[in-house]
């Protein structure tokens, strides 16, 4: 089962506003390890064609791992405003 299928099992209420914003300048110039690309358990980070970091925040599990691991603090990270984001039915 791939990660998209797993995320498809969860209940998400989608906001129009992103709750994670990447400071592109900091991300591109200060960060050396790009940990977000492999630490995110939902695999939401990827580089676009121009090597700019992007985040598919709609599938965010709100664990905060990317925020904690982002050394140059290139992420402005907040919980989605209510009533948005993941709503776990079990967990």
């Amino acid at each position: 089962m791939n990660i998209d299928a797993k995320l498809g099992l969860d209940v998400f209420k989608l906001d129009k506003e992103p709750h994670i914003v990447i400071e592109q300048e900091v991300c591109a110039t200060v960060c050396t390890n790009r940990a977000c690309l492999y630490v995110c358990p939902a695999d939401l980070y990827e580089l676009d064609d121009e090597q700019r970091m992007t985040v598919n925040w709609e599938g965010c599990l709100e664990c905060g791992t990317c925020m904690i691991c982002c050394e140059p603090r290139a992420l402005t990270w907040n919980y989605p405003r209510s009533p948005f984001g993941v709503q776990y039915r079990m967990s």
Partner: protein
Amino acid sequence: MEKVECIVVGGGLAGLSAAYGLAGAGAEVMVLERGDYSGAKNVTGGRLYVSPIRGFYPELWEEAPFERPVARELITMMGDGAHTTFELASDRLAHPPQSYTVVRARLDQWLAEKVGEKGGMVVPGMKVDELLRKEGRIVGIRAGADEIGADVVVVAEGVLRLLAEPAGLAARPVDRDHALGYKEVIELPAGVIEDRWNLNPGEGAAQLFLGSVTQGMLGGGFLYTNKESISLGVVVGMQAMKADGREIKSHELLDRWKELPQIKPLVAGGTVAEYSAHAIPEGGIAKVPRLYGDGYVLAGDAAGLSLNALVTVRGMDFAIASGYYAAQAILRARQAGDFSAAGLASYEVALRDSFVLKDLETARIYPQFMELPRLFTHYPTAVSRLFEDVFTIGPGPTPSLMKKAWKGIRRDFLNLGTLQDAWLARKL
């Protein structure tokens, strides 16, 4: 500005436990929960140790919607193509149960209802955006455009401290002190679960896995049997993952693990129903911030109250206990009409006298011990290799049992590195 006596930020176990105690004593309390319901944003492994908290709110635990009392404890050491499992089945684990498996959306919603029955107000769908400060004192909260004042704020916002940190109450979480935990909830019929883990009807098992599941990184796998599902997941230290995890995406650890021939039969026929993730505070006592101040107390994960002691993993019992003691301290402050730091100081005193900070103190060395490189690579493999040697009959003559065992012990457990580890382990 509207004002209430007590605001609780976060309707998880710590916040609800505090609210239950406050409302039960007649205090005016409002719980603000950002999810659609309590538990909507919460993730556990999960198992709750009830023995430490049975004395708090004893009327609650008899009727709580737990999943299964844990009657079997299993620890699995994973080597290369071989697993060794130690299994404890004990009458005394389950009668009375010392721990239960839990599903948070069920447990937390039920506790929120109990708070309501006591007269507390639980407001779901209300994300707090800021703790309001005035002259160094926490005086209330802001949620969107609304400001609500309070005599005291119970900050039970969870591990990320998105409110406590900007307000200067606690440090920003850092990778070294935190782990990522994530899991799949896999549905299986109750009878299948009981057959697979050799359980009597209604009883549960907890199984922890050390070794190749995290590919040598700090962490491990876990499996808890719920009523009609299992929670199967991985915990991996953030610092270790950043340093050594580049070759594999974090979520693939679980996928690869599930495919191992030793794990596959455990989940066969199951249907994945949910996928969830959460950060876990693992800094231990050294990273617990100041627990109270003028107009506030910190409780649960926000206070860093959790303990990974390798074979026992705790947090929810600390959350409930810290909520209980927070309520007691606030009620004392309320009686004295003093919600300053001095008025709330009995909170930390009570936690220090209780199992919460005592157990964290006992485990002071654990975060350092967990960083030993051999712990998640060499030892689980070596244990499996040892037992494999002992059980193997090859072609030709077989050495005596003791000869085989000693050979393995000398090879893998008696060298400079392992003896150094043992020296540190004496403090565990």
